[in-house]
């Protein structure tokens, strides 16, 4: 035991250093939220002289924050469900069927990966407008899902391919239709991969700033990143408040991730031991 600890000591040291670098900015932000802006310029790094909770409670006490949170959640969940469902089916066909023009079509999808969203913003805006999707959550959900497809399909396709063909043949012998195989065998097996892409989809949607800004005129549908910018504009000089808002805006993402991460890793290790 002690020998092992000794051997792994340098590794632990490396991890500790890297970990510190990773965590310091976050702790710094969280602590800053407990200070007054005055103190922030006087004492940027130490613990707060007095722990002020006002910055945090003020934000939590206003309904605005919760509404933004709800919007962000709704849009993220809807986007994720849509993108994962469509991608899983598409990736399944790309991975398991040989059909004419498959590679061309697949390349077409990978093209989407190379097209930055900012470029398409103007034409997309005009398009959404003519479809009457402005100020409508669908106006954000649909494009987000569309832009999320390429990445998700690429990851899922790779995963579906690793599943041995014999499994599929066995399933077919047992009387499974292709869709039945997909639904009852492939999807459950792909849970870790689905977990990964879901996390990615949620995160991307959660952090999207530009699209919701263009689509939502009305404050009722705004998401958290827009809230952050508005808040920063409103209190540009009160950094402590802005920090508190930043931290609060981070918390749901981090909390979600901490839950999802356990499932993700659980799925991965389960897959590994079974395989």
């Amino acid at each position, binding site marked *: 035991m002690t020998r092992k600890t000794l051997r792994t000591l340098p590794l632990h040291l490396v991890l500790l250093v890297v970990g510190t670098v990773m965590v310091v900015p976050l702790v710094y932000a969280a602590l800053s939220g407990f200070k007054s*802006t005055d103190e922030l*310029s006087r004492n940027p790094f130490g613990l707060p002289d007095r722990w002020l909770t006002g910055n945090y409670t003020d934000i939590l006490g206003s309904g605005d924050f919760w509404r933004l949170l709800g919007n962000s959640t709704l849009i993220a969940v809807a986007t994720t469900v849509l993108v994962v469902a469509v991608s899983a089916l598409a990736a399944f066909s790309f991975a398991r069927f040989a059909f004419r023009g498959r590679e061309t079509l697949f390349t077409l999808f990978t093209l989407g990966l190379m097209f930055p969203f900012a470029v398409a913003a103007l034409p997309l*805006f005009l398009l959404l407008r003519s479809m*009457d999707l*402005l100020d409508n959550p669908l106006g954000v959900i649909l494009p987000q899902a569309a832009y999320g497809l390429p990445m998700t399909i690429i990851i899922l396709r790779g995963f579906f391919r690793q599943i041995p063909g014999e499994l599929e043949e066995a399933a077919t012998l047992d009387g499974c239709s292709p869709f039945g195989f997909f639904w009852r065998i492939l999807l459950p097996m792909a849970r870790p991969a689905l977990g990964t892409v879901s996390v990615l989809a949620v995160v991307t949607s959660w952090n999207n700033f*530009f699209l919701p800004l263009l689509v939502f005129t009305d404050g009722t549908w705004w998401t958290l990143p827009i809230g952050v910018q*508005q808040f920063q*504009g409103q209190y*540009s000089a009160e950094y402590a408040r802005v920090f508190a808002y930043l931290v609060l805006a981070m918390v749901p993402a981090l909390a979600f991730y901490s839950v999802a991460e356990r499932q993700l890793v659980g799925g991965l290790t389960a897959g590994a031991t079974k395989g």
Partner: protein
Amino acid sequence: MGDPALSRRGFLAVSAAAGLGMTALSGCGGDSDGGSSGTTTIEWWNISTTQPTKDVWAGLAKKFEAQNPKVKIKIVQLENDAYKSKMTALTASGKLPDIFHTWGGGVLKQQVDAGLVEDLTDSTKAWADGLLPVAKQPYLIDDKTYGIPFDIGMIGFWYNKALFKQAGVSAPPTTWSGFLDAVRRLKSAGVTPLALAGKEKWPGMYYWAYLAMRTAGVDALRKAADDKDFTGAGFVQAGGHLKELVDLQPFQKGFLGAAYSTPTGQAATVGNGKAAMELMGQWAPVVEADAGKGLGADLGFFPFPAVEGGQGSITEVFGGGGGHALRKGAPQAAVDFLKFFASQATDQELVKKTGVLPVVPAAESSLTDPNLTAVQAQLKAATGFQLYLDQAYAPAVGQEINDSVAALIAGSKSPEQVTQSVTKTAKEEQ
């Protein structure tokens, strides 16, 4: 390229038609003439996301609704940068909000040329004639009124009297050589002479613009835009003078990455007494006190000095304000609201509570702050007016000036190159 003006108009006419056609086709968003009950809802887009303005404006909207029971006002407030991005997309789509914030100048002109903005000349004449003339300037396009101001101001030097005293500078300089002298003295006294938000570019542009006004003159700036030629000797000289200043290294440490209103930005640097001056608009005292501690009685204002041998004089001002414009075909209630917003009672409230300068002459009595009174006096006595360059000119030209001047300050462009880049952009803009 025989007649660029003609081709531009033709192009815009076509695009305007296309824009309107698109609106007609999509036929959505018809919120302006509401339901069967006869009430009209008007959308009012502004950038007043900060307090106390946010609440004051909301209160004014309520007051207007009370006076006009058949009108509902829907306020949409966006942070400055978000507003600009969003307006770009909206302009492209061919439909603007009923009432929207505007700075006038080149952006407004593009919207007007695209046929998206209501001509207010006749509908507002009766009451708009009484407004401060200099305040209305930015919204005049081809002698027609397209916007009504609620704020007007100018750029000048805001300085720390205590730091000036400490460096032995007895009175604010009135000439450029005197100014450079003051900078040298401040430096040798260990004081950072100037604060500048290099990251944001527009504060740097103020220096070049004022110097161009002082050397080449206001008319030359107007003519240069019309002729698409900024290579005149006066403009090169303006850049040369700015370079003289930059060579003294007068700015705070890290100014190239500094923002304007953040706690480490330009305003806070002056507000916390870490730099002696900044070249900024009438809002400077508010922001200095907000982002930093504020200077209180130590704060003073002086106009941009004259340049020896230049065409311009010290009484010509560089500035701008804020106003509202209406979309083409906005309901009458929107015009009524503009009238209400530019009334003496409203303006007095705005001046008292939100720190803007009066646009209604009778509201002047509400002005109490000595610094703002000094600014107001300058404005009233102005012998010439130039709108912020990044708003006066077409957006591409304005941005190029900001960009090139930033490069000059960073040392990567010469005064000649600035004028050449700007001219090139002006020519590319059809």
